[in-house]
Every structure is written in structure tokens, then in C-alpha cells.
């Protein structure tokens, strides 16, 4: 084995654990477990208020924004739309597939389950086609739940997951949330040309 194929066992174990969860208790239960886990993580994030939207953007740049802390720096694509160049689970996927070539069995079923309408995905405005892998069920709800800890000028913010792109380049769009956010799908499509994830932020009056 060359140095380039040294496994990070944490990554491999995590991916295989998801596979085991799917086998042992089904995709729906596994999805619920990962989402609950993500929400529990978000609960531990401290609340923060930014005086203005510019302050919020500055916090992304200097990586003090709680969302940035868990997913990396997002690109502000104008208005209230953001793109994320790197999927936070990218290294895990790369590490796994460089040795085992394919992601574990059952991941497609899991992803389909995440994209199905459910109370929890409605509550956090995620899924609905924007899921392209099981990792989206961790990342997207976690980001939305962390957003609940953030205020801008004392006002709450909400996030709509608009789309996502798999490592293979396949784009997934959440038509429901694109419509709810009032963003043109063509804009989302264009952002996903150069990004792995696309979402919008709304300041709640």
C-alpha cells in the first residue's frame, strides 16, 4: 500500500457504521439517528448575535461563525444565497473510496429516505431532493439547527437547503425549498457548478 492509500480509520469506521445501522435497523431509523445526533451537536453551540448581515459575513471570513466552524468557509453568492465549495464529508468519502472504490451498500436507500418528506426535514427545511448522500442528513440539519442559535440584529435567521452535488457531480435540487426561499433554480444550478452545497439564509422579522 502506498502512502496515498493509508486509511483514516475514523473515516472508514464512520462510513461502515452507517452501513451497519442501515442493515440492523433500516434506513428510516438510521436516518433518524444521524439527524438526532446532528441536532444534539448543534444544541451544544453557543448563541451568538451579529449586529448586521455584514458582521455575519465577516464572521464567515474569519471562521468564527458557528456554521463556518462545522462546515468550512461558505461563499456568499449574492443576496442571501451561499455556496460551499467543499463538502465537510469530502475527506471521509475520498479516504474510503480511494481504497474501497465504492461507498457502502445501502447508502442510496438511505439518501432516498432522507429526501422523503418528513416532519423533521420540514422543520429544518432540508432534504426534499437536496440530499445526495447519507452525510447530507448530518450536515444539512446540523447547519439549520445551528442557525437557530444565531441572530442578526436581534432577529432570528432560518436556512433553506436549496441543492447539493455528489462527489460524482450529480446535482440534487430541493424544489420545495427553492420555491419557499424565492430563489431562481437557475441560480442554484449555476452555484452548484462550482460548489458542492447551496443554501439560502432569511432574516425573520
Amino acid at each position, binding site marked *: 500500500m502506498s502512502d496515498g492509500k493509508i486509511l483514516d480509520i475514523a473515516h472508514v469506521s464512520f462510513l461502515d457504521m452507517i452501513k451497519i445501522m442501515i*442493515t*440492523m*435497523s*433500516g434506513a*428510516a*431509523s*438510521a*436516518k*433518524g*439517528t444521524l*439527524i*438526532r445526533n446532528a441536532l444534539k451537536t448543534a444544541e451544544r453551540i453557543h448563541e451568538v448575535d451579529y449586529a448586521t448581515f455584514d458582521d455575519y459575513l465577516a464572521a464567515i471570513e474569519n471562521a468564527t461563525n458557528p456554521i463556518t466552524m462545522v462546515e468550512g468557509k461558505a461563499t456568499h453568492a449574492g443576496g442571501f444565497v451561499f455556496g460551499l465549495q467543499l463538502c465537510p464529508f469530502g475527506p471521509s468519502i475520498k479516504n474510503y473510496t480511494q481504497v474501497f472504490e465504492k461507498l457502502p451498500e445501502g447508502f442510496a436507500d438511505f439518501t432516498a*429516505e432522507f429526501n422523503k*418528506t*418528513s*416532519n*423533521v426535514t*420540514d422543520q429544518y427545511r432540508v432534504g426534499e431532493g437536496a440530499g445526495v448522500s447519507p452525510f447530507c442528513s448530518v450536515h444539512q440539519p446540523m447547519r439549520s439547527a445551528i442557525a437557530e442559535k444565531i441572530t442578526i440584529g436581534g432577529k432570528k435567521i432560518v436556512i433553506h437547503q436549496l441543492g447539493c452535488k455528489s462527489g460524482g457531480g450529480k446535482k440534487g435540487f430541493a424544489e420545495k425549498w427553492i420555491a419557499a426561499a424565492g430563489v431562481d433554480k437557475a441560480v442554484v444550478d449555476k452555484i452548484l457548478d462550482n460548489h458542492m452545497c447551496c443554501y439560502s439564509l432569511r432574516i425573520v422579522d
Partner: protein
Amino acid sequence: MDSHGRSKKILIVDDEKYFLLSLVEGLSQYADTFTTLTAENGRAAIGVLESTGVDLVVTDLNMPEMDGFGLLAHMSKAYPGVPVVVMTAYCTPEIKKKLSEFGSLKILEKPIEFKELVDSIHAELASNSESYLRGITLPAFLQLLEMERKTCTLRIRSKGKVGFLCLRDGQLLEADNGNGRGDAAALDIVAWDETEIEISSVCKIRESKIQASLGFILMEAFRLKDERERSTAPETASRAVDAAPAAEPPTTFTEIIAEPTTTQSKEGNMADLKELLTEFTKLQGVNAVCLVGRDGFLLDSIAKTGFDAEMIGAIASSGFGSSESMGKQLGKGAMQMSMIEFDDGPVLFSPVGADAIFVIIADKDANLGMVRMKLKKHTKDLAVAAAV
């Protein structure tokens, strides 16, 4: 009291001894209005009916020796004017509505609410004293058989005519009115007046010779009867059947035999859901019920004692998923129910629709039979309420 100043007599028929005792005790406060007699099955009830005049019979359907159907059939011949209240665990509002359309039969849903029983007794005794035509009618009897999925053969007598109706698992399979068989014969028999019913718990017919559903036959028979009574040129029953394909009943009947609506608002569903969940917690030994998404997120719950419903939902999803995976691995088919027994009572999981699980947390003394019956009855309603 009747017009002669005599105390009225009601007869309660049920094989649950303690249930009878508790009813007799509860009803003793109305001793100035009526006297309460009891019997533990249909045969004992007939003995009471023969030995003393009874003004109202309140009966269960499932009993040993002679069940409620046997009793009702006997009463259709020997006591056609005595009103009857039937107690059952299987009734739905739709069935109640249908039964009210086909006669005066009153249904009480088990577990019985005492106030409702008292109100029903008073109402039935009052209407009887006003000389309404009371007692069991053939259409109402057939509805009960369908509701309880009864297998039997009925021998029907009316004004010198004799006919037979064969049912398996509550489905009408064959009819014979002495002149013919099939749908036309069923339509004819169902419309007979002053029927006397005999019931045998055997059905020799295996394959259905009847195309239309029982609900359709009942409605169509009444329509034809009405038409015959109004018209000098009556339409024949067989023509009517030919004109109305069994699979597509006329729209006028669709409303009556339609499934419960599934187009309620979410708010309406949630209000209904609370009522549904409450029904379960009224059952003996049931401490808590939770409706949980397959993903383990709680949809709603009701608990008599405090517990972390969110956590129970999450664990239930995992436990249910594991049981389902076990079934898949073993090729056992779809999961019906899973029960885990603990020192202090069982926990039951049951799938409701494709997206939810119903969790019942019970005590050691829980009446699991009643829980299962209730669950069977309400699974569809729960699935509708759980739908996102």
C-alpha cells in the same frame, strides 16, 4: 315505568362476569325506572326472555355457547318488538351510520362508557313506549355480520317465503330466494319485511356468487323497494343489478359506503389524533401511547405518568427497525407487531402505514386482547393522522 305503572326490565347479556356485576351495581341507582337482569350468554338470555317479559336487551356479540348473533336471530322470530342495543369493540362511525340507516339498532362501542349506556337505555325505553317499530332488522343484522366478519348461513322467513344467505368472513357469497340465486336473490331477500332469522355457523359456499358488495345490495334493495311501493310498473331486481356494475356503484351510494375521508387538514388530523390516542389510554393497564415516525421523531403521545417521549420514540424506531430487519433476514414478510415483555409489563410496537410506528406502553394487568382489537380497528385512522 310502563303505562300500567310496572317497572321496566332490561336484560344485559355478556360473558364477562365482573363487567356484568359492575353494570348491575352502577344501574341500581336507576331502580325506580328499570330493573336490571343479566345473562352470561345468548342461551341464558333466551331463558330469561322466556321466563319474564323484557323491555330492552343490551347484548355483547362474542360469547360462548350461544353468541349475540344467535340471540338476535332468535329474537327476530320470538321477540321482534323488543329493542336491542349491541355492544361491540369493532364499530366505527361509518358502521354506526350505516346501521342507523338500516333500522333502529343501537350500537355501543366497547369499552362501554357508563353514561352512554344509561342514555341509550333511557332513549330506547322511551322510544319503545311510544310504539315505534323496534327490534333487529335483517339489513342491520347483515351489517353486524359484516362488521364482525362472521361466517354463517342465514335462513330467512317472511310471509311464507324462505330464503338463504351465505356469508364467509362477513362477505356475502351466495343468496337463494327459492326462485333464483346470486345478486338478484340477495336484493329480493334483503327487502323482505317482518323477517325471522335463523343462523347456522356453517357456510358451505367457498367462492362468491355475488358480484355486488353487501353495502351496495342493501342500498339498492331499499331503493328498489321504494320504487316498487311508488310505481305501478316495478323494475325487476335482476335488471337493476345488470344496470349497476358491482365494481362501480352509482354515485348516490358511493357517499354512503365510502371509506372515511383522508383529505382532512393537518390541524384536523392532529385533533383527531389526540382523540385516538386518548382512546388507547382509556384501556385497562395502558400507561402511555406514542405515535412515532419511522425515523424516530415523535409525532404525538399521551402518557399517564411522566417519561421522556422523545427518547422513547428514538428507541422505538431503533427497536422496530431491528425487528423489521430480522423479519427481512428470515424472509418472514411484513411486520405486524412486536412485543417486548418486561417485569412490569409489555411494550408493543406496531407499524401504522408506511411512515409511522405506534408504541403502547402497558402494565402487567393490561388487557392485551382489547389493546390488539383497538389497534386493529384504528390502524388506518392512525396512519391517516400520521401522514405528513
